[in-house]
């Protein structure tokens, strides 16, 4: 399948060079800018100033790769609506336009309309605008969006995806490996928190990220939540060919090797390894669970039929019990894998 892969920037110029030298399957690199102007909804390894953005843009373009700036704060505390906020954002976007970045991703509807009206940079609706219906997609297209990253919660709702495709003419993108909980209850609060941490000051200085803790605890206790997460397996990209050919790989906080492994998997539309290797989040669980990706061949047929009412379906629960393994004594000479269903409900050994 011919496709366009949007790939995260590794956070530094040397890394960018290494990535573009190592893979010819990258259509566009995406990166966050400086958090001092507009924040971003996720953690980044680098905070590029305008000079750096210019350098990276020039390098990408010299390699026939596009560059996308991700300014997708889900909460700006209302600053975007103040005169000072408008002036600052306008100044920043003007600079990005002069630099020649190819696209700008934002989550706030106001910024979508403002950028579409006042600049010549195609504006992309972030996944953090949570476009999960044809009505919402139409609304954002009317505001001036040239592309929409669809809310990954509906990645397996083919009826919704098809309705969105029918309703709008703009480009659609699917985020393939976010790995977040399906219908995550922490989603809005967590991204708002990230937006402030990765946005203009004042930035909260917190000891523990409650939402991330809870996300891990839920999955450690019930790994079927990993399967219910609406990721798209590399093998299943072809199922989406009638929706789009544009796919975004998440992973702005990962190392180059990790990103390249994902690029190769999605470019090849096949991955023979641990599904957790491909999930952007939560990356810590890679040291706990082994879920053989190839054991999920054919699961898409079930997910197409049943992807909304988990308690009446039970497929992911049964499947995870069948295939999930847990590392025992990971990192030692005694390391081994045991079936997940053999360790549950064992209780105290006396």
């Amino acid at each position, binding site marked *: 399948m011919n496709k366009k892969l949007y790939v995260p920037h590794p956070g530094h110029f040397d890394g960018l060079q290494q990535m573009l030298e190592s893979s010819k399957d990258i259509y566009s690199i995406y990166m966050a800018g400086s958090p001092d102007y507009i924040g971003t909804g996720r953690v980044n390894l680098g905070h590029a100033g305008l000079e750096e953005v210019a350098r990276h843009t020039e390098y990408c373009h010299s390699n026939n790769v596009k560059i996308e700036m991700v300014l997708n704060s889900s909460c700006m505390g209302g600053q975007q609506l103040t005169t000072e906020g408008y002036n600052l954002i306008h100044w920043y976007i003007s600079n990005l336009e002069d630099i020649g970045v190819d696209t700008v991703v934002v989550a706030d509807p106001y910024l979508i309309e403002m950028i579409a009206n006042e600049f010549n940079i195609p504006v992309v609706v972030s996944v953090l605008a949570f476009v999960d219906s044809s009505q919402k997609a139409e609304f954002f297209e009317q505001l001036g969006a040239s592309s929409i990253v669809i809310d990954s919660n509906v990645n397996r709702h083919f009826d919704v995806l098809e309705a969105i495709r029918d309703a709008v003419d703009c480009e659609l993108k699917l985020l393939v490996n976010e790995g977040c909980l399906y219908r995550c209850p922490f989603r809005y609060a967590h991204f708002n928190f990230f937006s402030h941490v990765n946005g203009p000051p004042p930035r909260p200085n917190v000891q523990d990220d409650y939402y991330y803790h809870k996300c891990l605890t839920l999955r450690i206790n019930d790994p079927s939540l990993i399967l219910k997460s609406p990721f798209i397996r590399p093998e299943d990209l072809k199922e989406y060919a009638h929706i789009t050919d544009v796919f975004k790989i998440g992973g702005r906080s990962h190392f180059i090797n990790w990103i390249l492994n994902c690029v190769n998997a999605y470019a090849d539309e096949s991955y023979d390894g641990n599904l957790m290797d491909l999930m952007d989040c939560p990356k810590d669980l890679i040291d706990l669970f082994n879920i053989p990706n190839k054991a999920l061949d054919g699961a898409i047929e079930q997910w197409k039929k049943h992807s909304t009412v988990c308690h009446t379906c039970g497929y992911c629960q049964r499947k995870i019990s069948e295939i999930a393994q847990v590392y*025992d004594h990971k990192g030692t000479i005694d390391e081994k894998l045991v079936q997940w269903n053999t360790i549950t409900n064992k209780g105290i050994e006396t």
Partner: protein
Amino acid sequence: MKPEELLKTRADLEDGIKRLIGRAVMVIELDIFALPCGCSGYTANLRGFQVDDLEVFEEHILKLLESTSEAVGSPSDFVFARIIPGTQEIASVNVRNLCPRCYSDFASTSGKRPRPDIYILRLNKRRK
């Protein structure tokens, strides 16, 4: 302590908790620390372990932490869990050999929850 011994100690603690509570858990990091005040000890950062688990299995958890203390060579007179305040989430369990100043801070408190983020499993009082 050699790196491979530290790795084994982390894995043993994780395995011990897993067997105790009957489900998966992660000791996401095991750190031995020394602070400028004079405190030293170790911290096991946990994921998937909650206050309910600690309350039910406190005695057994203490034994596991004592074994870990022996492995890392740290006394276990002060043992506490760090909780995300107001939640069930345990961020870490800690064994700390207190310096005189920190000892007086903790010894002057009472009860298991002297602060919203701390659950004391053991604090051996020193003779004056």
